[in-house]
């Protein structure tokens, strides 16, 4: 199972890099999204994949009964997803603003904050 997940992560990273090499910043953003999902999967896989029950403590007990899954990577991934969600939502709004203000999504054309090219 870990091997399959490793291949999946590899595939996601490859797709992400491909997208991030594009000039359009929207594609770059999508690539970044894939990359962050790959990172989440890395955390998930490093918690060791086990087929256990949800780590919930039944009523009246002090510890979970039987074999339960590792809860920590789940908590970490959840936090990372939440934060990633917020950041990407912001980045998407920003990219949209950039498109409507600057009229382009090509990173090569975004030079307003750069020094002016020397006159020919």
């Amino acid at each position, binding site marked *: 199972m870990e091997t399959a997940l490793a291949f999946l992560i590899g595939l996601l990273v490859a797709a992400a890099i491909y997208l991030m090499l594009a000039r359009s910043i929207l594609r770059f953003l999508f690539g970044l999204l894939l990359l962050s999902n790959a990172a989440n999967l890395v955390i998930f896989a490093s918690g060791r994949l086990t087929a256990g029950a949800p780590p*919930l403590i039944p*009523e009246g007990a002090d510890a979970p009964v039987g074999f339960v899954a590792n809860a920590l990577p789940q908590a970490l991934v959840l936090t990372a997803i*939440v934060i990633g969600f*917020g950041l990407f*939502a*912001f980045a998407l*709004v920003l990219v*949209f*603003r950039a498109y409507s203000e600057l009229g382009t999504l090509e990173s090569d054309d975004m030079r307003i904050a750069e020094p002016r090219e020397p006159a020919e």
Partner: protein
Amino acid sequence: MNSLILMAGSRILVALLVVFSIFMLLRGHNEPGGGFIGGLIGAVGFVIYAISCGTASAREALRLTPETIAAVGLGVALFGGLMAAFTGDAFFTGQWLFIGETEDDKGLPLSSVLVFDVGVYLVVFGSILSLVFAMEEEI
């Protein structure tokens, strides 16, 4: 969008989703649920409303701006953490109050953890809506 069916349906949906989100919030201490998921569900209700009736009327229905809700939520969450100060515990230590406690029944358990969760609910609710409204109004 101008669809009568959606407009009529969304009013009921908003109410349902908000009630369900509060249910999820309160259920969250021992079972799946909690402030974050509750806040998301509540926000979805208003997002549907904004899609069907426009952001202007969604903002009106909220009364407070979503940013204010998020800021208040942050304050509430902080207060939940600060409640530990009253008993001299470390920051964020859970404080419990059992109303109507008897020998074999814990009564109604109220905790600072719940206050924190309510804060999270408001933060998520407010920030999602402010982002979505901003996007809707841009386009």
